[in-house]
């Protein structure tokens, strides 16, 4: 890959695994969108920022909501403003061009320098949303009928798409993407990540906290497992609270920072107090016939 002029190497405030870096470089070289999936808090969104920083490019973020339409990413024709102007304003209404507002995708096409375009949480949108963007992402161009103009990318942007897997994405769309799943970091990787955020952390505190954190993640039946961002917040809380490292494992202070659901706290308590044999006691009540 040495002859490629652009190669992503990671940036100072973001730890990138080799696998992920490879995937990014493949996507850049093949000029295809990179689809990133992974548990919440594994840094999917941060990745785009890091790529932009490392390659010294501008970052354009298109946040997708459940109501977002594909069209909005291309352009919006502000008919209301035009109507308003036609009745009260002095602006030249016949010039439709001034009522065309480019969306994020359009913006990234028209940028003079290559940019990084982040389409964040694409799965939030309607099922058909990705399909509506197939052509635009493939050809990097679209047509505006109102002005009879074709907007074509000056420099193909690097497209990063993130998904939380709330909806399955259509196959046709997937075929055009490079896919990478960010696995949850192992303890060593996590240590590096934590060091970026808390450079001068007491070693003993770190050890104890990490051990507790991974024990928690491995408790079966936890519905919302604590993620990286929760660990970082928790460490912050431990430092601010001046907690003695030796107490962390036994007492698990500020547990609410890590576990955010009542059910999960209950599950954990059950586990700790050896009530495992009665696990799901409530469920047993539901089906209380012991014979067939």
């Amino acid at each position, binding site marked *: 890959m040495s002859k490629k002029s652009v190669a992503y190497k990671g940036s100072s405030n973001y730890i990138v695994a080799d696998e992920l870096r490879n995937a990014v470089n493949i996507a850049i070289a093949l000029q295809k969108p990179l689809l990133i999936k992974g548990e919440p808090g594994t840094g999917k969104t941060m990745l785009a920022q890091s790529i932009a920083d490392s390659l010294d490019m501008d970052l354009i973020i298109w946040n997708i909501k459940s109501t977002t339409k594909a069209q909005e990413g291309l352009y919006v024709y502000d008919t209301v403003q035009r109507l308003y102007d036609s009745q009260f304003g002095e602006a030249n209404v016949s010039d439709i061009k001034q009522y065309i507002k480019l969306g994020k995708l359009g913006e990234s096409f028209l940028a003079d320098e290559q940019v990084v375009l982040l389409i964040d949480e694409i799965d939030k949108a309607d099922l058909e949303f990705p399909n509506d963007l197939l052509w635009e992402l493939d050809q990097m161009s679209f047509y505006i009928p109102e002005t009879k103009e074709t907007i074509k990318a000056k420099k193909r942007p690097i497209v990063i798409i993130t998904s939380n897997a709330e909806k399955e994405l259509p196959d046709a769309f997937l075929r055009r993407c*490079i896919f990478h799943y960010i696995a949850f970091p192992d303890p060593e990787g996590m240590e590096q990540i934590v060091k970026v955020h808390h450079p001068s952390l007491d070693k003993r505190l770190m050890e104890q906290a990490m051990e507790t954190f991974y024990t928690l993640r491995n408790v079966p039946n936890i519905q919302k497992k604590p993620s990286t961002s929760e660990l970082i917040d928790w460490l912050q809380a431990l430092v601010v609270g001046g907690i003695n490292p030796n107490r962390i494992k036994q007492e698990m202070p500020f547990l609410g920072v890590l576990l955010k659901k009542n059910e999960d706290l209950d599950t954990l308590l059950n586990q700790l107090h050896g009530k495992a044999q009665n696990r799901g006691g409530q469920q047993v009540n539901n089906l209380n016939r012991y014979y*067939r």
Partner: protein
Amino acid sequence: MFTDFFYTLKNFGVPVTFNEWQTLLDALEAGMAGSSLTGFYYLSRALLIKTEAHYDRFDMAFANYFGGIETPEGLPDKIWEWLDKELPQIEITDEMRRNHHQLDLEEMKRMLAERLAEQMEEHHGGNRWVGTGGTSPFGHSGYHPGGIRVGGQSRNQSAVKVAGMRRFQEFRTDETLGVRQFQVALRKLRQFTTRLDGARTELDLDATVNKTCDNAGRLELIWERPRENGIKVLLLMDAGGSMLSYSRLCNQLFTAVNRSNHFKDLKVFYFHNCIYDWLYHSSACVQNDYTDTEYVLRTYSPDYRVLLVGDASMAPYELLKVGGVIDWDLYNDKPGIDWLRQIRQHFEYSVWLNPVRRDYWDWMEGSYTLKTIASVFPMHEMTIDGLEQAIKGLKTKQAVQAI
């Protein structure tokens, strides 16, 4: 050149298409695998696999196809440095091929260890020492059939080993998973009413604005028919004793169905082992708290999607005989199987979800009744994959398949 690999992937159930394969070949042409197996592993995975659910299948296929290729670990850092240099390709002649007889892996590992002990300096080209280029069996970018590649792009672990670790096993969709996954699967069970019928009650703002602008400002309201999910669900759950061991799984499904608020209507009934004249309102199957099955069949329209959940295993007489009901103070005039057939006939879409793993269906206790019921309803095991298939079956009319 790797065409076999393509078919290996297919055999392991990875849905690869020709387009993606073509992209992979292009990428290889461009040298993006860095002429190493690990590079190839990540490159092909990024290009061919589109969901983490298939990572495990990919790993297995990869290990199967490229198995037996290994690189040793734990080499001194200095040797890595020497090796971290790229060389031009060398021409390989038949003579060269003949000169190198295949060494077996154990012997080579031993030789490598010996040479590491002896070698004191950087080496490129040549045929003995660990270095780049040349024809020594050790090092990279050189030529030796069956040699050990040392260094180059993949320093850490051999791709086969990475693949062999099967780190993504837990993402397989044929595993049984939690409430959320059920919910996501259930979300697919929707069918919007068409915009062709019904009253126009919803103001179409965009169309109104456009039309008004077209009229140069004279207001014209456009009304649209609303679209909503038209799916109605009838959930029938077995609450018999043999279901106890699956109560957690069933509870997860139940929670997921209940939380799915996108159904137009959701009705839940319980039965004890098999359906007879009565459908109970609670999972305890209390005998005075029920609705007549006859009534359900009469009042619920055929477009209700029926989801039956149960292990379908019972004594044969419970299913086939008049008076076979297990509660001994009850009596049924019609055998259970007839009731099941009637439900299947009345409702256009119905499936049976079985929490028992498919592997056990053939030889478990009660496999006779299970098979009889599976000849009436399409039966799927209660995993994410199974649920998705079941939901497909609830959206399209599905024939019963022999199992």
